[in-house]
């Protein structure tokens, strides 16, 4: 996971800004909305973790239904190739800062499906993962422990592996193209976003993004039809 360690965010010189940054990190760590994509069997331990017995809500962790408002993407178990496409799509839609937690051994190294033809083995080849919770399946306590670890990292300003997706987009895209074929594309313009967030790094563009740009069709705006038009034409 730490093959490309990121520096701790640079401290700003203005003391007021530093206090502000710390405050923001504290608040972020204390109100995490998680989008759990029930990709595999590990999802069955989340209802106990979320409801009255283990009660994640006391830590400020709540389920969220849409990717746009979520902070954490919880990958609960093995990801089949069909699911992985949706996972990547969901991840790219989430607003930064965003964190990925891989629950279950299957997300670490394929787990007991290591020889399956239908699953993606290592999640962090396709997405930057912040915390892994190993186990088959991890108990609710372990899930909460993992989330607490992430909270600690956020508070310390160390959980910025989402930046890696922008800085090294080419590497992630390479793995994705490897798996899904050269025509793989998503509606999100990661390179543009990287420039916008000032996270453009030497690894953002490369051989694989070139391939992407060659065949990428620009998005067409959807034509919306008003009710009265339907009446007229039908």
């Amino acid at each position, binding site marked *: 996971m730490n093959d490309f360690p990121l520096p701790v965010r640079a401290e700003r010189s203005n003391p007021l800004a530093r206090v502000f940054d710390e405050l923001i990190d504290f608040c972020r760590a204390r109100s995490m909305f998680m*989008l759990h*994509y*029930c*990709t*595999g*069997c590990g*999802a*069955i*331990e989340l*209802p*106990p973790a979320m*409801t*009255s*017995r283990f009660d994640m809500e006391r830590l400020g962790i709540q389920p969220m*239904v849409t990717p746009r408002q979520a902070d954490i993407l919880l990958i609960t178990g*093995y990801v*089949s190739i*069909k*699911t992985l*496409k*949706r996972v*990547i*799509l*969901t991840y790219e839609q989430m607003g930064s800062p965003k964190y990925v937690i891989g629950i279950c051994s299957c997300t670490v190294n394929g787990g*007991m*499906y290591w*020889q*399956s*033809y*239908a*699953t993606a083995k290592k999640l962090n080849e396709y997405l930057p993962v912040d915390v892994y919770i190993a186990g*088959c*399946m991890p*108990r609710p306590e372990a899930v909460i422990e993992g989330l607490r670890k992430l909270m600690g990292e956020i508070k310390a300003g160390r959980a910025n592996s989402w930046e890696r997706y922008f800085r090294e987009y080419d590497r992630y895209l390479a793995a994705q193209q490897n798996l899904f074929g050269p*025509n*793989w*594309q*998503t*509606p999100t313009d990661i390179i543009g976003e990287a420039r916008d967030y000032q996270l453009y790094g030497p690894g953002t563009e490369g051989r694989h993004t070139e391939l992407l740009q060659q065949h990428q*069709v620009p*998005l*067409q*705006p*959807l*034509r919306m*039809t008003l009710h009265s*038009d*339907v009446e007229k*034409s*039908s």
Partner: protein
Amino acid sequence: MRPENYQAQSHPPSHEYELNFGPNHPGIEGNYALQVRLHGDTVVSAHADGGYLHRGFEKLMEGRLWIQNIALVPRICVPDPVPMEVCYSLAIEDISGLQVPERAKWLRVLQLELSRIAAHLFYFGGHAATTGMYSPSFWGVADRDLILDRFEELSGGRVYHIFNIPGGVRRDIPEGFLGRVSALLDYLEARLPEYDDLLFRNQVFVRRSKGVGVIDQQQALAWGVTGPNLRATGLGFDVRRDDPYLIYNQLDFEIPTEDSGCCWARTLVRRSELQQSIRICRQVIAALPDIGGPVRAPIPNPLAWNVPVGESYTRVESSKGELAYYVLSTGGEKPYRVHVRGPSAMHAVQVLEKMVTGGRLEDVAQIMFSLDACPPEVDR
């Protein structure tokens, strides 16, 4: 949305539109999608889109030892894993002619019924949540956890027990286990009236679910519906009684049925089954102390075990319906072919597609959940 073809497409103007349920959070527990075409609030057509959980189980099992597969099978149906282990073990015992000790049979039935109770409790909560009631899901999950604690005590695993192996069960029950299970059953039984007030007699739930997602008996038989969903149409077919395995023919229990075949009936059938399962567990607890003997028949070295040539089709009643394994052995140390006949594959694909058609948008999630399908088992 499919990432492969997310491009905007123009269609001729129409009043119909498409809506995706899932895969991120559909009504059923897990990763499964349903695409519905709607006209206003009415579903015109539906298309089930599975395969998100496909792991190629049947292929994986051909590449592993007979005994290794025991760890793999419970993953096929996550909320109700015990019938998977038992059914697979039964099939191997059938092929190899292993005699299971009497005590092991009773222990298996105890696990099967506890697992059924756990799965049904989970189901009630989920079904209520699709109608906008969230308290029952908190109750159901909390009470299910008490059963998981007993499983943990028995086998060391909360969700996956891997406790049944060909020839019996792995070890005997711990000291005082039966007493604790019996206390748990008393508690669950005492909770049932509260569940009635909260859910089964709650007018919000009754009015939302009565008469929704109806299927009649003829159709149900034609589409391969089994288990509680079939019993909700008035046909009292249950593998436990009609094709008894283990020691079910020595037990005294009823097969609850309902006639209307709607979502409400399906819930009621499961609620009555909960009582019957408690009853079965009580009988097992009463009988177990008098049944001595080993809990496991000796099997050959499991790492070099060549199950004799043969084939077997074994079925059991899981909480979702009729579950069967077809196992074919050519005398090797690995199975030649294992096929899983799961109940959910029928329920969640063909039955669901037809059932939601003509229904209303707000009932789609409810109908999906009321069938109690298990997506990992649909995709396998």
